[in-house]
């Protein structure tokens, strides 16, 4: 797949540090094959924040795990993942171990399960530094104090002696970030980093991530289902549906003029605090399809109000929406009938007519019980 150069965020320049091309991941068992990720491509430049958005099962986390080389042996990975010129797909575990934690690092949703409960915070941060940087115990300790300070933990000298259970959820997530950036990685993958946290704590974590990219130039892949977090932190957004990319755009274009009906549905269904108060929320009818097959069609077609024979007859390419903008346009979508640039309503439901393949019994969604 030839990929156009995507415009980076303001202030981000240079060659991509991470290039994902036509990535596919499938899991095979005796009875079925699940195609979790199917044809995902993106570029990430230094200091850039790319949000990967979608609902449960859309493949956003599997994509990140593939990039980290953390998928189980049952997973079959295709396509290409290049990190600073080094190919990661097919790399040996030994090679990956040299890269993980040093050039690319990851933080997870639940910090408590990622931290070792019987080791002090200082020891856990030091472990990375001793392994990848060959630091002595003393050097590692001094650097650990600096890192805790960087992620905004008060009294770091005292904190490095503490154990994970002595910290709050927000502080634990800051420790995870400190471990992740200990070796100054070029890329940080943050998989739902604030989902388990309260909103007032979330605000602090998002500020830490923001300061990392400003002070260290870290490029961040922010995996989330929360469009509020995306609006807050992302430069560019990749929307996924049923394992496939459906739309990619700079953040303002995505929220202001989404082209794909699924993106519009998602933006319409999201709640806005301090918004219109009591009102009926637009819904997306139907259910997410099974990932057992890779249909040569648009996978959103059964739930889409704009769908016709073209949508069920062939898979739409993930391409620039406006041909006149050239092949390197930053805004692209996989849709046969995208919304036009002037349809700026942004929040309408794509499918008000209920284009489901079964006759509707009651005028409510979610009733197609096929799973």
């Amino acid at each position, binding site marked *: 797949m030839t990929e156009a150069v995507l415009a980076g965020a303001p202030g981000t320049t240079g060659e991509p540090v991470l290039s994902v091309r036509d990535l596919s991941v499938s899991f095979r068992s005796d009875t079925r094959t699940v195609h979790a990720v199917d044809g995902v491509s993106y570029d990430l430049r230094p200091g850039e924040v790319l949000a990967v958005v979608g609902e449960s099962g859309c493949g956003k986390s599997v994509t990140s795990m593939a990039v980290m080389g953390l998928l189980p042996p049952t997973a079959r990975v295709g396509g290409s993942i290049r990190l600073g010129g080094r190919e990661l797909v097919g790399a040996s575990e030994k090679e990956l171990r040299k890269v993980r934690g040093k050039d690319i690092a990851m933080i997870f949703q639940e910090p408590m399960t990622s931290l070792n409960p019987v080791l002090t915070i200082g020891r856990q941060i030091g472990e990375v530094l001793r392994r990848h940087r060959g630091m002595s115990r003393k050097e590692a300790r001094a650097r650990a104090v600096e890192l805790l300070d960087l992620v905004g933990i008060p009294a770091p000298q005292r904190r490095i002696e503490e154990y994970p259970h002595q910290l709050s959820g927000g502080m634990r997530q800051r420790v995870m970030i400190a471990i992740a950036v200990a070796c100054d990685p070029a890329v940080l993958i943050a998989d739902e980093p604030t989902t388990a946290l309260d909103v007032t704590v979330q605000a602090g974590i998002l500020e830490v991530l923001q300061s990392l990219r400003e002070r260290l130039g870290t490029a961040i892949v922010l995996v989330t289902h929360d469009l509020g977090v995306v609006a807050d932190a992302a430069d560019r957004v990749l929307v996924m549906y049923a394992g496939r990319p459906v739309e990619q755009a700079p953040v303002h274009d995505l929220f202001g003029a989404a082209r794909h009906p699924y993106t519009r549905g998602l933006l319409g269904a999201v709640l806005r*605090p301090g918004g219109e108060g009591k009102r009926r929320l637009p819904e*997306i009818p139907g259910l997410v399809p099974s990932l057992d097959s890779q249909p040569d069609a648009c996978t959103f077609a059964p739930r889409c109000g704009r769908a016709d024979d073209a949508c069920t007859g062939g898979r739409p390419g993930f391409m620039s929406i406006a041909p006149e903008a050239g092949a390197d346009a930053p805004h692209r979508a996989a849709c046969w009938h995208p919304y036009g640039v002037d349809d700026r309503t942004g929040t309408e439901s794509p499918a008000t007519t209920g284009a489901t393949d079964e006759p509707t019994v009651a005028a409510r969604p979610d009733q197609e019980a096929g799973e």
Partner: protein
Amino acid sequence: MTTPQTVPAPRESDGTSSHPQPPVLRIDALERHFAASGGGTVRAVDGVSITIGRGEVVGLVGESGSGKSTVGRCVVRLDEPTGGTVHINGTDVTHLSRRTLRPLRKDFHLVFQDPSSSLDPRMTIGQIIAEPIRLHRQARGEAVRTRVEQLLGQVGLRPEHADRHPHELSGGQRQRISIARALSCDPDLVVADEPTSALDVSVQASVLNLLADLQRDRGFGCLFITHDLAAVEYLADRIAVMYLGQIVEQAPTAELFAAPKHPYTQALLSAAPVPDPVEQRSRERIVLHGELPSPLDPPPGCRFHTRCPLATERCRTEVPVLRELPGGRQVSCHLVGDDGTAPDAAA
């Protein structure tokens, strides 16, 4: 922010009785203290009072550890209050025995956050919904099945779903089943504890629409417990905000969002990100410093003073009481004037 709208007065139910009916729920000075393992007392809920009129939806909002779920559990008597009273339809249920409480249980029901752990995986959907109907002798024989099918229709599912098991349904469908079960005996009060928090955005929208429709049609009172300000704004007539076991502010929904008075409410509203990059990036964000104090040893004076950007000497020593303000609002903050003039925590 939109212009403040008037909050609809609490709706009367069918109007079968001509004299004024007691509120569906009256919580008075509710306390739930736990003995901590290392000695001392965890004051999880420490003097909470809420009244819910017939057909009224009250949102109870707070962050983890605020005690909001414990309030809900005390109301439906999954937990035993250590102080205060709970009246449902005028009956004091605070310390009723399980046996005396049982016939009253048809009047109130709970919807949990996670439908996959609150539905018995071995029962069919039909059995799950029919159980309360049979236990409370609301119908017998064939009429039970008819009632189950009716309820399935009301929550947007088909009659044949009755023969399936919970694992055959999606998360959103399972939450619809929980709602159908909660409504099976036509309760006057539904306590919903984070009913949409485990669901995806688009599914959450449809479950919220469903709850709003049913609430309007059936007119049950509802205590809607959540950390999600946007969800509560969508459903509630009135909102109570909890911090560390106590209510710090209570107001009609539109008023609370238009002009939050308590610095904690202001911080909470400013921290919830708005799904609009232009608006979100131009907002003033109030970042709270410090940690949530332990309910084992709550701070003296105002419980919020350790994190409040505006705290004064008085806040550190003197406990603020929850005062009535004009417009049916309540707030517990020394810095809010009796006329409702409030400080700005973002300034």
